[in-house]
């Protein structure tokens, strides 16, 4: 029997508790433990993806207890796809952490940093492999609590208030998720997702079900940072250490989106959310508003990190828009964008972190002339920005193309205009930065030496930047998992 579904979750947790133990003895062992745990998780994710592709959805009964009594882990193509994305980005972020954290964090916090980051990774992987609604809530709490602490860990000015805001809003979110879960449990007597989807149709006219749906939507809406529930995000993202921000923007909010997809499509089902209660059409409008408003805010930012944070809010909007269109092309685009955006935003935040590491610069105006100082990093930045704008042949172009096709397929041409307009706005704020970096004169003549980053930071940047280009051309590789995922979700 293949134990990958549980091992992919347990490995980071074991690493998380091994790291403080070894940290008492030698602090630098923590980094090795974290890299090893993340590497093992990636290995198990690949095995999961392999067996999902060959033999379909995997069901794993923890403790040997049959569902709906025991906890069931369900890995379908979407879960395997999320697992791969999460563990790939996490591995790169952990590798990148070595030099960055040693310089940026005050002494004595390195051990807790690696513990927290492994808990964050484990919690997210737990969310995506579980087939039990209450377990999903527990895992959401685990990764959220690790995330609050990671926002505050630097102890710098603003980090506590940023973390506090995040804590309050996200706790409201998780409370609502718990309430919604409780409502569903009261009315159906089960928490297993597959079981819920069988039992729920009998109660489709009940107000309890509507209440549960509303609570779950708003709860996961806060986690996903949909407009107008996104206010916690820019503060938290811009203040956390760069490798953490990479994980946040590339996967944490996507995991919220994933939970939203699970609740809407697996538990309530396509028919309920489009015909009986028009949640999906409403979500498309919320997503469109998220895209436009966040892009607008991004243009007006002066801090590079905040600009990237708003830009990643906008891109979560694309994911939700595509999925909520509830047509095949749109869902393909939305889910594909989870991966493509993770590559691009990961690379951009890595580069922003590299600039902070090298020079301490946080403001966009101060970036002038850095293109000549750290050319490889800035070239990667440009490539990833091109992917975010959606310039062919980068990965971002492909998913936006699918999204536009999906909008046309659904007959909602207005969203094509939204996507084009937002891409234009994205181009505005990225081109401004790129222009300053390469052609803005040199503000740091003689102050900043020309040399590249340490290898542990440069390699993750280059891998993600190349990923943006490679997966724009070889689209078939991620689509092998995305297409069956769409099939499973739409019940075909």
């Amino acid at each position, binding site marked *: *029997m293949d134990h990958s579904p549980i091992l992919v979750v347990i490995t980071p947790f074991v690493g998380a*508790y*091994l790291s403080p133990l070894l940290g008492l003895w030698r602090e630098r062992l923590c980094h090795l433990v974290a890299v090893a745990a993340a590497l093992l998780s990636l290995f198990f994710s690949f095995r999961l993806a392999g067996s999902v592709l060959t033999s379909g959805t995997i069901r*794993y009964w923890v403790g040997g207890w049959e569902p709906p009594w025991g906890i069931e882990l369900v890995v379908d193509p979407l879960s395997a796809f999320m697992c791969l994305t999460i563990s790939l980005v996490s591995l790169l972020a952990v590798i990148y952490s070595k030099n960055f954290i040693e310089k940026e964090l005050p002494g004595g916090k390195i051990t807790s940093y690696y513990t927290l980051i492994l808990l964050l990774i484990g919690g997210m992987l737990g969310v995506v492999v579980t087939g039990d609604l209450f377990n999903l809530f527990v895992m959401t709490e685990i990764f959220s609590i690790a995330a609050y602490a990671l926002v505050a860990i630097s102890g710098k000015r603003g980090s506590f208030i940023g973390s506090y805001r995040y804590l309050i809003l996200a706790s409201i979110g998780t409370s609502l998720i718990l309430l919604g879960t409780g409502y569903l449990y009261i009315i159906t007597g089960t928490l297993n997702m597959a079981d819920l989807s069988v039992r729920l149709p009998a109660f489709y006219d009940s107000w309890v079900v509507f209440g549960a749906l509303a609570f779950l939507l708003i709860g996961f809406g806060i986690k996903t940072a949909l407009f107008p529930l996104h206010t916690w995000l820019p503060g938290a993202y811009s203040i956390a250490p760069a490798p953490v921000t990479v994980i946040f923007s590339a996967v944490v909010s996507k995991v919220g989106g994933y939970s939203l997809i699970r609740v809407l499509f697996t538990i309530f089902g396509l028919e309920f959310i489009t015909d009986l209660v028009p949640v999906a059409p409403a979500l498309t409008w919320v997503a469109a508003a998220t895209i436009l408003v966040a892009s607008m805010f991004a243009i007006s930012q002066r801090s590079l990190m905040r600009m990237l944070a708003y830009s990643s809010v906008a891109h979560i909007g694309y994911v939700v828009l595509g999925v909520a269109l509830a047509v095949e092309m749109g869902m393909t685009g939305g889910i594909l964008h989870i991966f493509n955006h993770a590559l691009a935003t990961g690379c951009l935040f890595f580069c922003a972190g590299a600039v902070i590491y090298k020079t301490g610069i946080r403001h966009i105006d101060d970036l002038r002339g850095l293109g000549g100082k750290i050319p490889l990093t800035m070239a990667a930045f440009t490539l990833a920005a091109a992917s975010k704008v959606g310039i062919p042949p980068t990965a971002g172009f492909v998913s936006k193309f699918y999204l536009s096709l999906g909008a046309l397929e659904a007959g909602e041409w207005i969203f094509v205009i939204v996507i084009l307009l937002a891409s234009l706005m994205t181009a505005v704020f990225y081109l401004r930065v790129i222009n300053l970096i390469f052609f803005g004169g040199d503000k740091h003549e003689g102050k900043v030496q020309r040399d590249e980053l340490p290898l542990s930071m440069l390699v993750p940047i280059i891998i993600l930047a190349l990923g943006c280009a490679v997966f724009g051309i070889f689209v078939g590789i991620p689509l092998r998992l995305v297409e069956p995922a769409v099939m499973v979700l739409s019940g075909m």
Partner: protein
Amino acid sequence: MMTTVVIQTIARVVVPFLQLFGLYIIVHGPVSPGGGFQGGVIVGASMILLALSYDLSSAETKVSHKVRIAMDSTGALLFAGIGLLCLLAGGVFLEYGIIPLPMVPAEVRGLMILLVGVAIGIHIMALAASLFLHLAEEHDT
């Protein structure tokens, strides 16, 4: 904070009983209400009582930061280790009955739940004490 000799003496008398009661709750987990978490919290609370009735540093010398971290990690790793042991024995994660011991499966399950309870107990007693001591200690910012 004001503390008197009355409080200190009573605390000193009560603490051993508290801890014994906590251990009782932990080891009776498989057969009666309670278990690792509840018992662990009681043992942790005894350290909080010490810290309240004497001062922080006296509780800190009883269980230092390093000891708490070691207990915390060891407990969690023991739990995960028992779960993974079931994988080695050919079962699924946490399927206690499959571990090959010379007993009937129900007894093996009971024994493993006791071990898991002890693991969680170690984890939680360090955690409960840490939660209080960390929040109470003076921060420089």
